[in-house]
């Protein structure tokens, strides 16, 4: 019995590799941009195949969506064809191959994908101290934090910190357990937008004033 997930993964990853080679070799920048979008969509399929739906969603919306659009916008400002350059750059090839081989060597130590006996499934942080665990530290809610919700027991919610009110584990991790992290990520995005405004909008106004004086 052939593992269907594996067959699909191999098929998708072969397509991904073919697309990546095409991106490097094609000279038309528009084709390269579209191929990058296809690459991201294929990667989104790979993530979905691994049940990492949130990652796949992000890859599809950011990698295939907004990056392609912003690259198309940048394409308007440049030429349409890349400079003719030799395709094979030996030092870059050596570095890429060595790094790739090191990464593949590193995966040899990892548990098999979906292995129920993988350490992450039975060695949990801060569990019973008599058991072996990867990290010994105090985890859980602060003593002064809101207590667990006991008001909805009749609804059959699981007894986790969110009582099943936040079914998407990724969101509850990002927004609650790593709330500070996500808040400062939002601040980083805000700062990026603010910098764009401060640097570029003023320049545009100056240009308009200068042109107005000239005419």
């Amino acid at each position, binding site marked *: 019995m052939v593992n269907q997930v594996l067959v699909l993964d191999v098929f998708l990853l072969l397509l991904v590799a073919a697309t990546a080679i095409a991106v490097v070799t094609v000279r038309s920048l528009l084709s390269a941009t579209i191929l990058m979008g296809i690459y991201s969509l294929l990667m989104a399929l790979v993530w979905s195949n691994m049940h990492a739906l949130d990652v796949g969603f*992000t890859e599809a919306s950011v990698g295939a969506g907004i990056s392609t*659009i912003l690259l198309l916008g940048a394409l308007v*400002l440049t030429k349409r064809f890349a400079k003719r350059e030799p395709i094979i750059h030996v030092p870059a090839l050596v570095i890429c191959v060595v790094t790739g081989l090191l990464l593949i060597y590193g995966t040899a130590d990892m548990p098999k994908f979906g292995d129920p006996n993988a350490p992450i499934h039975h060695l949990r942080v801060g569990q019973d101290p008599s058991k072996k665990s990867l990290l010994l530290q105090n985890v859980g809610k*602060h003593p002064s934090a809101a207590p667990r919700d006991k008001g909805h027991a009749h609804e059959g919610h699981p007894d986790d910190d969110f009582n099943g009110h*936040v079914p*998407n584990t990724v969101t509850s991790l990002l*927004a609650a357990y790593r709330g*500070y992290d996500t*808040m400062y990520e939002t601040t980083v995005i805000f700062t990026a937008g603010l910098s764009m*405004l401060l640097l570029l909008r003023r320049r545009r106004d100056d240009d308009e004033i200068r042109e107005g004086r000239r005419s």
Partner: protein
Amino acid sequence: MREHEPPDEVRTSMLPDETMSQQTLVRVVAKMTIPFILVLGIYVILHGELGPGGGFQGGVILAAGFILYGMVFGADELRRRIPTVVFDIGMALGALLYAGTGLASLLAGGTFLDYGMLQPTHAGDGEALGMTLVEYGVGITVCSVMTTIYLMVSDPADSKVEG
């Protein structure tokens, strides 16, 4: 690709946006799909804590809808429909909404970003409420910033052709 390129004098006399909007197919398809893109983006933001996706992805999809409009009908048309001040306010509003949710739970007696304190009798509901608000904040900021970046990147092309 190369043989379809228009001669140089034709290319320089046309705005890239104009060449896009003159293609009926692009305009019709954009007009048909933009509402669905915007609804999907709002759906993803609103259901961030229930299904896959969340504020970031939803915000990006919303911004993609706006940017598609700007690419097909021109960035100036997008600025006319939605004043840039809306995006400026949105950038700050989203970040403030996130920090404000944290501050609200601090004022309610918990620690910073302890959403359960928003509804101390039903902490689970408070968690859901707090995460929803936070996702809205992320979505608003991401959507505004992405659209602003597009408007800024598309600026030099417009001013070059106008001047």
